[in-house]
């Protein structure tokens, strides 16, 4: 009888731990999904794929040798999702969660500005005809479009502003 009570107790504890773990995992998934606008939250933009996440130790699987630069700056993970604008322009959004704001700025400044148009977005931004990079707090955001079109630059900017709003919440 005592054995039975003890076993039920152990099982209850195990179930509680499992629930807490699952809740923690769900919370973490929600946290990783939070900065990504849902479909049509930003006009014209539809999220076309699931969010993929690569932790720091596996970052090389996503960006190969570039991972070294991010690791030195204290990256924790990158989350990435695919989007499509008005059923015409495919794009990918990468959001790097760095250890702190200094790390995000460090990666941002390690890249040449080239022909970027300076804009006010986040804590610093570079805007190109087919891509947008900015950092805000401990996050570095990169949006890359795979097609060039007259609408692409403004569309990228709108998506970037939408992400910035999500990050500010």
């Amino acid at each position: 009888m005592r054995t039975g009570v003890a076993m039920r107790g152990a099982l209850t504890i195990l179930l509680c731990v499992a629930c807490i773990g699952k809740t923690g995992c769900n919370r973490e998934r929600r946290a990783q999904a939070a900065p990504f606008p849902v479909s049509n939250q930003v006009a014209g933009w539809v999220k076309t794929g699931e969010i993929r996440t690569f932790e720091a130790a596996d970052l090389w699987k996503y960006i190969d040798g570039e991972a070294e630069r991010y690791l030195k700056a204290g990256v924790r993970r990158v989350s990435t999702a695919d989007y499509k604008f008005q059923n015409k322009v495919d794009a990918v959004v990468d959001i790097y969660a760095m250890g702190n704001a200094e790390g995000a700025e460090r990666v941002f400044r390690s890249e040449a500005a080239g022909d970027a148009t300076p804009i006010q977005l986040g804590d610093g931004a570079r805007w190109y005809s087919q891509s947008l990079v900015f950092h805000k707090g401990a996050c570095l955001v990169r949006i890359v479009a795979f097609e060039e079109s007259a609408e692409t630059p403004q569309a990228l900017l709108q998506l970037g502003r939408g992400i910035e709003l999500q990050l500010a919440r």
Partner: protein
Amino acid sequence: MSGGLSGSRRDFLKKCLAGAAVLSTGGRTGLLAAAEQGGVAAKSRVVVARDATLRGVNSTVDAHRMMNLLDHAMQALFDRDNPTETWKRLVRPGETVGVKVNALGGRGFSSNLQLIEAICERLQEAGIKANDIVVWDRDSDELEHAGFHVLTGGNRVQCYGTDRVDYEQELVTHGSVGSRLSRILTQRCNLLINVPVLKDHDGAGVSIALKNMYGVIHNPNKYHPNGCNPYIADLNMLPEIRTKMRLSICDATTASYEGGPGYKPEYSWKNNALIISQDPVALDYTGWQIIERKRAERGLKTLEGDGRAPHYIATAADAQHRLGTNDPRRIAVVEV
């Protein structure tokens, strides 16, 4: 882009190919042997084929023009008038051919789909069965993201990643590398057609034919220090890679000169070219020069000035490796 070859160019190409007969059978090993046997340094031929009208109205590569570009490049490399004949010099019916692509750059910057389709079509015309062609890289999800359709089984060209079959259990070693090889390479393929992308690389300086073999092993993340040197060269010395590599066809249709290896359109350009060679060192050297010219055009420092010259190329050519040549006097670049 020129059409057929003139007589004088044909003679020139024949002189450059002292080891042509050996090239058709032994790949890189044969090339070096021919050079040694002949006593006269045979030049490594690198063909750069370009078509300024390769893309259609929406900047997508035109499949028909891509096939023509591939044919011109192969005909120039092997000095043949018929495209099928060029492929018959490389493959024999009954062999299984691995087409090792580079899908890391995703949709914008992976081995071009129209190029891969053209290669697969020509392989079949040369007598290779469709399901004996495996288009592959390290990960099936990555292939899908790059626009490839993963397919296993049936009578069609196969396409999948090493994640479907795993790596060999045993480590193989050479010099500084010790890695487990993809079972696609070790158990599925008799030979490799290597299809890298012409890229700048944050660490190595450039990422072209030799570095594309990082996608064959389970632990490429261990081999990025010191500009990936001597890791790239040592990796390519592994017997399974060295003996099976038959040809490298570098997709230089969209290339990058800065910010690689990931896709950054602000540092990429529509080069609309293919670079092909049976000497991957000579190919990498040639690709490096193309990137340097673009960097100079854009007002950027050389890779040396940026602290990341691709020293691995010289290592691959040195006496301990002899994977090919990086001596421009021994490289015949043919532009068509």
